[in-house]
Each structure stands twice: as structure tokens, then as C-alpha cells.
């Protein structure tokens, strides 16, 4: 290849690799919260970032876990390498085989296997379990970078030292250790990097109230990323970039630290082991950076973070309440206000779907105090004896809840002794007036070829099956196999028309004019209409799902009184109003509704539809494990078709 082509190729590859990064940096200056819209230049996210304790805590947790797990893995791994080196060949091969398991296994298998272990041992998921998991997948990296160095060391020097009267420990420290040090250091750095970047294993081993940057971002992906995240990653990226420049500018260090990390990353897999022998002679400059500057920088960062962190989470006392709520389903100010007024510390964890929440409650590996499931899931939890009856004497504010919704609640909580309604709404069609010419009043429009690739469907079993069953004129709680099969076939027929199956992303996509029609929850519809006035919400005439999300207390809750205080607080008119304004889902709280200033919203058809519109609507019922499996089966057939 001639020179210009080489350069051109290089530049094209750089564009490919950096286009998304540039996008993220641009988004960090976007004043609109939606990814799909450019709202003008702003620096706000950067200033808000440092005040956002949730993000800063996640950053700190990420760094602490990375540092601790790398450190412990380095100690265990280096010792192990020396031990393995002294083993007989057959046993050594066997041990190295075990060492390779975490590297050859898919992350998802490693993560799940550890989760199964922790749950079986009744470990409380949290910081400790993440740390254990990270150490586990880090040790092999250390062993694989130390072993080749050990092989290169000359045994005779060690023996010579012994012959000259050195104790084995002294001989090791003065003769062997300096030789293997580059391997140890690169093992440490490699482990640190891998821990920083891990998402899948952390996802399966984390518990409530603790997030690393990866898990925090993943939770936000569904509901729209908080732009502070873009700002944070821009800052992190620039830091690393500047660090790299500085290191590479110094003439002494020809083999820079980061490229050595890079070299080590390259050697992740067993076959890459060879590449470690590459740099036997390490230069003084890079050693200085590796041994002194980098660790010092990391320790300073963590120490600063530590001070910040401890100032944030001052109370470690047991006076707390562990809340498990839907993503983006409560105004953060409400939590702060609750903490200030009661002195109870709130540990807040979010879930994406009822189906993700349920197994966690059932396994009881985490003792949540107060959870916010939907109607059918509450019924299931009651039937499986997972809930504690509420003491309504501690929840006097329940008088603020409109009796209509309490009566509706009897469908899933017949004795009204387990649940307090929090939000309710309907499932309907959000459409873009400029893109849809036909009248929208029936589900049938979702099967209209005209809107091919312009339709967004809900990516959840019950909603997708439910609206199809309604369209067919059946109950959305049917267990009749032939009706379900009919719905399945209809959904398969619809699939070529569907642009994507989404949960909360429907919001961003509809705002950004990405699709003409989307199946959406009424609460999201209000938010979308505020951002994009061309959008209109309809409950189709065939009827739909009306849902209620209510607060319940699991049987194994450790802080029941605090949980009841929390529920009572949420039922206060002013608090319910605050939450309504933040999350825009309809509130069953009549005191709050009366306080809404804007008459357009107080009497909005979307937020508070006329009861006549709801006559064909049903709540979901829990249908039993077998029927659940049947629904899942049908849905999977649709998805994999």
C-alpha cells in the first residue's frame, strides 16, 4: 500500500471509532433532556453533575470497587502464580484450566452463576457481592500476566542467593520480585481497567441502593439518559486523554503506561499469553509513572471521593427504609424532603418491569421495605404470601385517595389490606398528527400497512398481548389457548410493520418524530405532548388496559414502621402533587388533583379521562405460573419469528 492510502485508511478508522464519542460530547452540551432534539447550547449539565450525589456516588463506587478488587486480585494472583509455578506439571495444567474458566465463559454465565451462589448462601446483595465478583474475574488477568514473567526469571539467581546465605523470603524479595514486577503492575492495571468497564457481571450481582456507572447508565438507557452522564463521560474521557498526552510528551518514557495497559488488555485470553514477553526491559521513565504517579493519582482521586462520599451518606444508622420503585417514578426532591422531615434515611433502588422485580422479592435475598408493583403483580404476591398486611393507623393520609381507585384496587387486593394506590393510567396510542392522516380510534391502525416501519410497540408480554386480545374483542386476561394463538399470529403479522419494540424509549422516539404511532402509557403521553405539540393520545374504542401501581410492604421487610411512614408521606396532597408534576402519571390523590393550578391539566382527558372512556378497559389479573409461561412462550415466538 502506498503512503496516502495508509493515511486515508487510518483517518477513516479514526472517524469510525470517534464518531460516537464526538456525538456524546455534543450531547453533553445539549440543553434538551431528550436525545432526539437539539435544544441549544448549555453548560448546565456540567454544573449539575457535581451536585448530583447519585452520579457522584456511582462514580465513587466504581472507582473503589475497581481499586480494591484490582489490589486484592493482584495479591492473591501473584501469590498463586508463584505457587502454581512450583507445582508438578499435571496439576499445574489443571489449575491453569480452572483459571481460564472465567475468561472463556461468557460474562452473562459468570454473572448468573455468581448470582445463584449469593442467593443460595442468602448473601445480601450489595457492595460486598460486587467486590467478590470483581475479584473473581480479575484474578485470572493477574495470573496470566505474572506467570510469563515468572517463567522468564532465571532460577539459578534465586538459588545463588540462597547459597550465599539469603533467607528464602529475602532472596525472593530482592531477586525474584524485581524481575516479575512489570507483570504484577500490568496485571493490576489490567484488572483495574476490566473492573471499571464491567457491566454484565455487576448487573447480576448488585443489590439495592448501590450502582456503578455502568449499571446506572443501563438503568437510564430505558428511560432516557440523564445528560449529566454525557458530561461525566466527557470529563473522564478528557482526563484520560490529557493524561496520555502528558505521559507521551515526556521524552524519557518511550513505552508509555497506557500502551502497556493496552498491550495487557490484548492478552486477556489465554492465547494472548505470549504477548507479555514483549517488554522485558522497561524504561525508568515509564516505571516512574507506573509506580509512583499513577497510583498516587488514583489514591488522591479515591481519597477525595471518599471525603465527598462520607459527607453525602452521613447516616449509616439502621434508621432507614429501602424503597424499590419503577425507574424515574418519583421526584428526587420528595425523597430529600422525607429524609429531612423524618430523619429516616432512604435507600432507593429502581426496576424496569414487574417481571424483573418479582424474582428479587421472591428470592428474599434483598429485604426491601416498600415496593411499587402493578395490580396483577400485587395479586400474585398476595397469593404467594409475599406481602405483609398494612397497618392503616400508620397511614392516615389514605383518606386523600379517591375512593374510586380504592374500589378498583379490590380487583387485585380484595380485602384492601395490602396496597395503597400511587399512580394509575391507561395504555393507548400516541400518534403524530403530521404523519397520520387516518382517524385514530381503533387498535386496527397498528396493523395498517401504510405505517410500515413507523409503529412502536411495547416490549412487554402483557401489554403487547393485551392490546392484541382487546383488538380481537377478547379479554386481556384470557387463558383460552386458541384466543392466545390468534393474538400471537396477529402480532407475528404485525412484526414487519413494527419499527422497534421498546419500553420507555418510545418517549424519545415519538418526540424526535422517529415514528408515527406508538403504544404508550398515558403518563408518558402527557410528557411527550409537552415536548412535541403534534402528538395526540387516544384510548382505542375496543378498550384497553387500565392499571394501578400501588405501594406494598414485603413480608421480610426490616423497617415496616418506616415503610408505612413513607407511604403515608407519599399520600400527602402536596407531595402527591409534586410527584404528579414530576412524573406526569395520573394521581389517584384527590387532594393533589384539586391543587393543580393549570385547569387544562386538572381536567385533561389524558391524565383524568372521563369514566365513560374506560368502560371497555380492564386491569390485568395474575393468571398463574402456567398461564404466565404460556403468555411468555407466545411472546417469544413473536419476538424470534
Amino acid at each position: 500500500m502506498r503512503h496516502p492510502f495508509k493515511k486515508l485508511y487510518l483517518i477513516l478508522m479514526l472517524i469510525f471509532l470517534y464518531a460516537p464519542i464526538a456525538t456524546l460530547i455534543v450531547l453533553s452540551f445539549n440543553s434538551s433532556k431528550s436525545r432526539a432534539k437539539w435544544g441549544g447550547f448549555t453548560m448546565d449539565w456540567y454544573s449539575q453533575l457535581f451536585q448530583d450525589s447519585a452520579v457522584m456516588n456511582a462514580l465513587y463506587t466504581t472507582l473503589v470497587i475497581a481499586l480494591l478488587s484490582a489490589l486484592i486480585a493482584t495479591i492473591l494472583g501473584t501469590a498463586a502464580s508463584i505457587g502454581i509455578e512450583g507445582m508438578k506439571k499435571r496439576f499445574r495444567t489443571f489449575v491453569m484450566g480452572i483459571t481460564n474458566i472465567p475468561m472463556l465463559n461468557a460474562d452473562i454465565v459468570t454473572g448468573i452463576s455468581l448470582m445463584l451462589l449469593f442467593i443460595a448462601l442468602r448473601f445480601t446483595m450489595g457492595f460486598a457481592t460486587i467486590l467478590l465478583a470483581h475479584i473473581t474475574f480479575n484474578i485470572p488477568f493477574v495470573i496470566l500476566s505474572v506467570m510469563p514473567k515468572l517463567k522468564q526469571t532465571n532460577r539459578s539467581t534465586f538459588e545463588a542467593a540462597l547459597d550465599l546465605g539469603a533467607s528464602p523470603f529475602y532472596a525472593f524479595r530482592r531477586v525474584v520480585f524485581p524481575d516479575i514486577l512489570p507483570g504484577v503492575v500490568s496485571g493490576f492495571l489490567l484488572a483495574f481497567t476490566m473492573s471499571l468497564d464491567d457491566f454484565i457481571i455487576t448487573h447480576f450481582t448488585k443489590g439495592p441502593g448501590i450502582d456503578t456507572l455502568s449499571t446506572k447508565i443501563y438503568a437510564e438507557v430505558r428511560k432516557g439518559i440523564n445528560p449529566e452522564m454525557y458530561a461525566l463521560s466527557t470529563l473522564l474521557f478528557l482526563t484520560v486523554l490529557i493524561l496520555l498526552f502528558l505521559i507521551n510528551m515526556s521524552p524519557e518514557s518511550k513505552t508509555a503506561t497506557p500502551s502497556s495497559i493496552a498491550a495487557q488488555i490484548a492478552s486477556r485470553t489465554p492465547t494472548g499469553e505470549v504477548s507479555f514477553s514483549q517488554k522485558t526491559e522497561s524504561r525508568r521513565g515509564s516505571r516512574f509513572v507506573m509506580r509512583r504517579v499513577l497510583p498516587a493519582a488514583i489514591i488522591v482521586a479515591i481519597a477525595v471521593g471518599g471525603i465527598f462520599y462520607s459527607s453525602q451518606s452521613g447516616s449509616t444508622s439502621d434508621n432507614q427504609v429501602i424503597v424499590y420503585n419503577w425507574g424515574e417514578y418519583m421526584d428526587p426532591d420528595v425523597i430529600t424532603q422525607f429524609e429531612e422531615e423524618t430523619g429516616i434515611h432512604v435507600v432507593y433502588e429502581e426496576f424496569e418491569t414487574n417481571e424483573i422485580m418479582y424474582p428479587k422479592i421472591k428470592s428474599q435475598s434483598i429485604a426491601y421495605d416498600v415496593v411499587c408493583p402493578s395490580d396483577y403483580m400485587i395479586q400474585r404476591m398476595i397469593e404467594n404470601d409475599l406481602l405483609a398486611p398494612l397497618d392503616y393507623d400508620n397511614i392516615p393520609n389514605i383518606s386523600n385517595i379517591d375512593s374510586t381507585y380504592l374500589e378498583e384496587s379490590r380487583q387485585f387486593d380484595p380485602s384492601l389490606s395490602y396496597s395503597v394506590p400511587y399512580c394509575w393510567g391507561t395504555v393507548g396510542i400516541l400518534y403524530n398528527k403530521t404523519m397520520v392522516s387516518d382517524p385514530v380510534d381503533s387498535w386496527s391502525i397498528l396493523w395498517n400497512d401504510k405505517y410500515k416501519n413507523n409503529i412502536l410497540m411495547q416490549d412487554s408480554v402483557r401489554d403487547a398481548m393485551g392490546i392484541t386480545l382487546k383488538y380481537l374483542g377478547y379479554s386481556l386476561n384470557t387463558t383460552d389457548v386458541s384466543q392466545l394463538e390468534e393474538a400471537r399470529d396477529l402480532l407475528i403479522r404485525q412484526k414487519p410493520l413494527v419499527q422497534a419494540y421498546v419500553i420507555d424509549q418510545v418517549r424519545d422516539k415519538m418526540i424526535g418524530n422517529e415514528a408515527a404511532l406508538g403504544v404508550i402509557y398515558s403518563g408518558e403521553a402527557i410528557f411527550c405532548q409537552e415536548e412535541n405539540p403534534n402528538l395526540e393520545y387516544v384510548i382505542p374504542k375496543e378498550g384497553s388496559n387500565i392499571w394501578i401501581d400501588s405501594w406494598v410492604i414485603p413480608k421480610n421487610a426490616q423497617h415496616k414502621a418506616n415503610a408505612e411512614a413513607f407511604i403515608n408521606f407519599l399520600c400527602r396532597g402536596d407531595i402527591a402533587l409534586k410527584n404528579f408534576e414530576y412524573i406526569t402519571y395520573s394521581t389517584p390523590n384527590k387532594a393533589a388533583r384539586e391543587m393543580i393550578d393549570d385547569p387544562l391539566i386538572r381536567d385533561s382527558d389524558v391524565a383524568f379521562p372521563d369514566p365513560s372512556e374506560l368502560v371497555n378497559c380492564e386491569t390485568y389479573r395474575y393468571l398463574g405460573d402456567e398461564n404466565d409461561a404460556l403468555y411468555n412462550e407466545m411472546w417469544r415466538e413473536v419476538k424470534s419469528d
Partner: protein
Amino acid sequence: MRRPSQLKNKKLLAGPYLFWAVAFVIIPLIMIFYYGFTDNNGAFTLTNLAGIASADNLKALGLSLVLSLISTAVCLILAYPLAMILIDLNIGRSGFLVVVFVLPMWMNFLLRTMAWQTLLEKNGVINTFLSLFGLEPLALINTPGAIVLGMVYNFLPFMILPIYNILCKMDQDVINAARDLGASPRQTFTKIIWPLSLPGVISGITMVFIPALTTFVISDLLGGSKILLIGNIIEQSFTQANDWHVGSGLSLVLMIFIIFSMMFMQKYDKNGEGGVF
């Protein structure tokens, strides 16, 4: 005289690690085996493992296989010339360029993948750009192509690095000798450079293929959840369908599948450098 006891002491150093490995690697695997081979009532069954043979799952596995093989091939085709160019241009430049190609890995991979959504969407950056030239917008997002792109993008550094490393270490004298003996550039490549770089290539293939085969995040974000890969099915059986037995059974199958394909790969690592099997 001292050596035997010495050897024994040394071995003890591996003790803590072995304990750790048993507790957090072996036992968790046994848990997966347990769940994989039992049903809801704890009775022995093979139905979970056989679950892979259902039409849906086979299809997902097949699709995962196709997409990850394509991604691996694309990565190799992109990375090999790149590594060679980097070596060519790199003299005296202290590997800085390599770092530039690895740097994106320090940005969170979820965010990077999200950013591709913004680029590929119907009204995304690329289509806006095309429309400036009066070109028809392309359907980019939510296609298998988008998933392949996401895989290539995320795993490319894992292919560049091992190849770059092995090319770096290659003895220049061997190449010069080949040239002196009259080999054409093409012959030098096919007879000398390529065979010598094979361990790096295999390392790269392993590191791209395994994560690509098992990912569930990339297919979720760039495939619009319309395209189910085997990773998605496993993840959903744990987090949505609440069926850990089926999930474990499928994980086992996936694990066995990966181990076999790795064994197959190792055969081509003729020098046997660092092979496990």
C-alpha cells in the same frame, strides 16, 4: 537438600487462590449445573438442556452465530491492515497511535452504543447528512446490520491489539531474509508474516467472537429488541420470564458450545503458544 521442602512451601502460596477459585468459580458453576438439570420441583430433568432444540432458541443461536462470525470476520479484515499500518507509521512514535485506537474503550460501552442510536436513527445524524445531499434516507437502525456494526465497533480494539502486539515482536530479520532470498511482498506476507502472526489473530478472534456471541445489550439497543440473540433469551429467562432452570440450561449449552469452538480454534495455534487445551 532444601529444595524439596522449598517447593512445598511455594505451592502453599497458591492455597488462598485455590480456595477462592473453588468458592467463586467451581461452586457457582455447579449451581448452574444444578439449576440446568432440575425442574421447578428439584427433580432431575434434561428438558432445560433440550430447550435449545426448540425452534425459537435454535434460531436465536443460529442468528447469534451468524452475526458474531460476520463481526469477527469484519474485525479481522479491518484490524489486520490497520495493525500493519500502525507498525509502519509508528517508528519512534512510542505506540501513541495504538493508544488512540484503544482510547474509546475508556468511554462507557453502553454510552458508546447509545451514541450509535443517535447516529443511525431515521432522523439521526447520518440520515440528516444524507438528506443535505438530496439522498434518500437509509433504514439503518433496528436491523441485523446495525447489530453487526455495534459488535464491530465495540470489539474492534480486542482484535487490533493482539495482532499489533504480535507484529511488533516479529523478528524483522526473518522478513528481511525472506526478501533477500527473493520473496515477493505477497509471498513474504503469505509465507512469513501471516503464519507467524497466527497466534495473535487467534487471540483476537477469541476475544471478539465470545463477547459477540453472548451479548444481549448490543442487540437490545441497536436491534430495537426486534432481533433476539441467544444472550437475550438467556437474560430474559432470568429477568423476565423468571425461569432460572431454563436459563441455566441454556447457559450450559452456550458454555459447552464456546469451549468446543475454542478447542477447535486452538488446533490452528500451531506453535501451541499459551494454549489451554
